[in-house]
Structures are given as C-alpha cells and as structure tokens.
C-alpha cells in the first residue's frame, strides 16, 4: 500500500494540465535551477495539492475505520454522524449567501461539520440509553437529513450561484496553495492522534461491550472518543476537499478484504495509506483526463474504488 501511495504521489507531481518534463519536476523538488513557470506550477500548485490529497485521503480512511469500529457497523461512514450534511450546509452558507467571503469556506464547513456531529453525540450519547448504537445512527440520519434539507433550501433560493457549489458537493481538491492546510492542519493532527489512541480500545470493543467492560474498558467512552476523532477528521477533510465521505465507507472495507483481518492495529494505518493513495490517484486523473478543464474528483474516486472493491468482495465470498 505504501508503494501504491508513493506511485500515486509521483504521478500527481509529474502530471498536470501543463506538460513539465520529469527532469524539471525532480530539479524543482531538489531545489535546483528550473524555468520560473515550471517552478511555480510544481511548488505552488502541484505539491500542496498532492499533500492535501494524501492528508484528506488518509483522514477519510481513518475516520471510516474509527466509525465502523466504534459503531460496530459495516455501513458506518462520516455521513452517519451527520458530518457530511453539516459540512455541506456550512459550505453552502458561504458559497450561496456570501460568495465574496469564500476564504471562510473551509472554516465554515469545518464548524458546521463538527456542530452536526456534536448534535448527534448529544442526542445519541446522553440521557437514558445513551450510547446505544441504533440510537446514535438514527440521530445521525435525522441530523444529516435536517442539514441536507437546509442545504437544498438554500440552493433553491440562489439557483444562479449553484454552479459554484457543485464542485464542493461532488467533492474536489483545489489548487489554492498551502492556505487551506495551514488553517486546518491542527484539526487533522488532533483527529489522527485521537484515532491512534483508539486502536487498542476499538480492538477490545470488537469482542463485545460486556467482554470489553470486564477487562476494564468503558465501551461508551471508547465509542464517543472514536466517533469524535472520526468527526474531527471527516470535518477537516470536508473543509478542504468537499463531500467525499464515500471514501470513508469504502476504504476500511477494502483494507479488511485485502488483509483478511479486522484488527485495528492493521486496519487503521493501512486505511490511512489506502485512502491517501486512492484519493491522490483519483485527483491526478480528474486533473488530467479532460485537461485543461478540471473535473471533480468524486466520480473518479468511485470509478477507481468501486470496481476494485467489488472484485475483492466477490473474491472474498
């Protein structure tokens, strides 16, 4: 998987709308003298975008693995805890209501993604029967529906501005330099660290709540912390790349089918690598296939990921 990620990253740096000889790409990366335009394209556009694709892909892979482990549900993805709906609404608020403040889009998407998750956690984890998986999932579906309806309402009020929103909704990376990562990286860092701490507790949770409790674990706390890590990672990913939650659903399954194990010390890091590799490869395709026009990455992600997933699924069965 590491090899796949390195190959995808190399392709992402080497290919783009403007042809730059491989030698010039390498010279730029090693700080040697190259034509100014090539240097700008590699340093300002391709390099930050490749790093974004790696970070976002890894974040979504880990978020999916965390959630599927925490909720003990193979269908869990960032959609289930309302993050996608919330982030989409946050982005639409900026794009449709105040397009001139588009620099605030990542923060707005992040804030509303986290707000949606917070609402789901409040409903799902508090009160009598709090922490019940069905209750968390149903609360997530309801909150996601609420934000989706609000988003649809906004879009119907401002139909002329919708084209600008499409790329966020179908998911896509942009070449905005390091700006987005400079703002959002602390959230990724917190999310990844939290998720890393959840590897062993999630393994214990796989044995069942009673068994986990008997060895001193607190299932409700593990579930909440893992879901929180997933919410932070998925919101941060949505802030940068729009709504690509499908990656969070697909990647952990793909990794489990490839490795033949559910152990989180394997699933979590390999999901990070696989998510990063798949998103980086899909983004390179999206940038180059109809060059100089850029396509949204979401459909390419599906085109690359689903056949592989179905093939593995068939093989496993």
């Amino acid at each position, binding site marked *: 998987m590491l090899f796949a990620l390195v190959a995808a990253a190399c392709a992402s740096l080497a290919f*783009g*709308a*403007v042809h730059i000889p491989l030698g010039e790409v390498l010279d730029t990366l090693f700080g040697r003298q190259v034509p*100014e*335009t090539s240097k*700008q*394209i590699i340093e*300002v*556009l*391709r390099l930050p975008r490749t790093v974004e694709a790696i970070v976002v892909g890894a974040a979504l892979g880990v978020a999916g693995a965390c959630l599927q482990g925490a909720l003990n549900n193979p269908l869990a993805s960032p959609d289930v805890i309302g993050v996608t709906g919330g982030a989409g609404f946050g982005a639409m608020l900026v*794009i449709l209501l*105040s*397009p*001139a*403040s*588009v*620099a605030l*889009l990542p923060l707005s998407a992040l804030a509303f993604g986290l707000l949606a998750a917070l609402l789901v956690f409040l409903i799902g984890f508090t009160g009598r029967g709090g922490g019940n998986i069905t209750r968390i999932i149903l609360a997530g579906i309801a909150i996601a529906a609420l934000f989706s309806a609000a988003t649809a309402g906004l879009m*119907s009020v*401002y*139909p*002329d*501005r919708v*084209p*600008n*929103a499409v*790329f*966020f909704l179908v998911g*896509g990376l*942009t*070449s*905005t*330099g*390091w*700006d987005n990562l400079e703002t959002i990286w602390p959230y990724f860092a917190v999310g990844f660290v939290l998720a890393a701490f959840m590897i062993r507790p999630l393994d214990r949770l796989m044995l069942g709540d009673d068994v986990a409790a008997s060895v001193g674990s607190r299932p409700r706390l593990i579930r909440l912390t893992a879901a929180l890590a997933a919410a932070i990672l998925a919101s941060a990913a949505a802030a940068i790349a*729009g709504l690509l939650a499908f990656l969070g659903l697909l990647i952990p399954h793909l990794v489990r089918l490839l490795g033949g194990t559910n152990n989180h010390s394997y699933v979590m890091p390999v999901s990070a690598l696989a998510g990063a590799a798949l998103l980086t490869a899909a983004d390179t395709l999206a*940038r180059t296939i109809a*060059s*100089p*026009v*850029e*396509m949204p990455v979401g459909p390419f992600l599906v085109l690359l990921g689903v056949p592989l997933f179905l093939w593995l699924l068939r093989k496993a069965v």
Partner: protein
Amino acid sequence: MTTVAARTQPRFNRIHGLVMLLAAVLLGLALAAPHAEAAGKQRVVAISPFAASAMIKMGVKPIAIGQTIGGSRRLDPRLRNVKTLKLSHPNGPNLEVMAKIKPDLVFSSTRWSKGTSAMKRLGIRVVYADPTGLGQVYPTIRKIGRKIGRSAQAGRLIASMKKRVNRATKPTTKHPKILVVLGIGTTAMAFLKNSWGGQLVRAAGGNLVTGGATNSGGFARLSDEVVVAQNPDIIVVVPHGNSDDIGQVADYIENNEAWQTTNAVKNGKVFVSVDNELLQAGTDVGQIIGKIRSKWLKNW
C-alpha cells in the same frame, strides 16, 4: 370550332389564374389583418432583459418584465415602473402569476424552457428572445420587432446599435491576455470563447485565456496550471448576482496564492464586472464593448 376553342382556352386559363391570384391575395390580407391588429393590442411579458430593452426601444412597453440579477442600472428608466416578475429555476416566472396577468405573448429565454410547455397550456405564446452570442443579437431584435408589429423600429434600432458596435470595435494593436472568471468559489469557472462575456471581450480586442478548453455551455473549470502558464495580463471577475462585495471579490483574487505570479495580479490588473454586463445580453452591446476597451484594456 377547333380554331375558336384553341383561341379561347389560353384566355380562360389566364382569367382563371388571375382569379386564383386575387383570391390568394385576399386570403392573405384577411389572415394578416387581424394579426397586425392584435400585434398592437397584445399583452406582452418580457422575461428576458434583452427583449424588455429591445421592446421599449421600439416604443412598446411590456406589461411585465423578468427580474434583473446583479442590479438594475442597465434597465431602461422607462421600464422601472413596470411590474417585475420573480424568476426561479427552472420554470422562470411563477405560472399562477402568469395565469393571473394573462399575457398573449411572452419573450422568454431557453434557460427557462422548462416552464414553456406549461405557459403554452395556459394559452400563452412563448418566443425565445435572449441571444447567447453576438451573431444572434440583430436577428433576435428583428424577431421581436416582427412579433410586436414594429419591424421598421427594429430596423432603426439595429442600425443605431451597429453604429455603436462599429465605433467600439475599431481595429486596435492592443490584444492583452484576459482571463474572465465566473463567480468566486473553490473553483474558477473560466469564460470560454462561446460565452456571451467571452465574445464581448474578444470583440473589444482582448485575447481570451481559455487554455484551448471548449464547452457548449461556455464555461469550464480551468486548471490553475494553465492560468499560471498562460499568465494573463488582466483578470476580470464576474460575480454572481449581487455585486455589493466588489472590494472583497478583488481582494480574494489578488490574494489567491495560485494566481499571485500572474502579470494581472502583480500589476494590479484585477477588475470586477458589474451589472451582469458579461453574463446577460442587452441592447447596450456597443457600450459594453466600449467600456471593456476603455476601462480594462486601457494603459495596457
């Protein structure tokens, strides 16, 4: 007998032909007369701002016009007190409102085509009159003139517009590279050669930056790499609708890290288009081309 018959046969044919011709002329007049009368009296709604502007310049006031997005400065003052209909995608005007005001004829746009069949079911004639290219401007004015019985006025309007356009498009040696982008968001949608704004910019002498991209819709999400490589001298941002935030829009583009290396940003040549002038066709084509040349292309 044979001789007489042979002589009378051509005469009979000639008389028969004349009678037929007379009948045809009378029938044509009979059909045309009520139509011409109706053209003067018919209630017309001009959803497309282009049709509203053309109508008023031909001396006919529509009973209602479609709302104009992005300010009303381009709206003819004589249309300011005319009922304005709100438009929504994809139907256009509210069909119940249309049923209430009962127009005979609606000048619409293909962008509202989904509502056309419903309007037709309400007994309203619908004619598309919203050019999407410079080549369609004069034929559309002629069509509007014919439909409202003002063909002569349409001809005069075309003549005056041609004069202004010819003045505005005088040959120039300045052909700066211009990137025109629609709205601001996470993606830059570039105006292509077949877009309304792209055609105006090129008519003004600008060299439109498209990276060779084509799209029947006239817009495409252009790679930032192409923008950096083609290095536009001028960037024009066309905001969606509201242009109150012009300062913020220009700031955003100037601070966009990806484009900071372009000549346009380095030399402060980032402009914001207002009043939908690069999005919505109007009868002020010559004035807008002139503005592009005098305000954006000057000092280049």
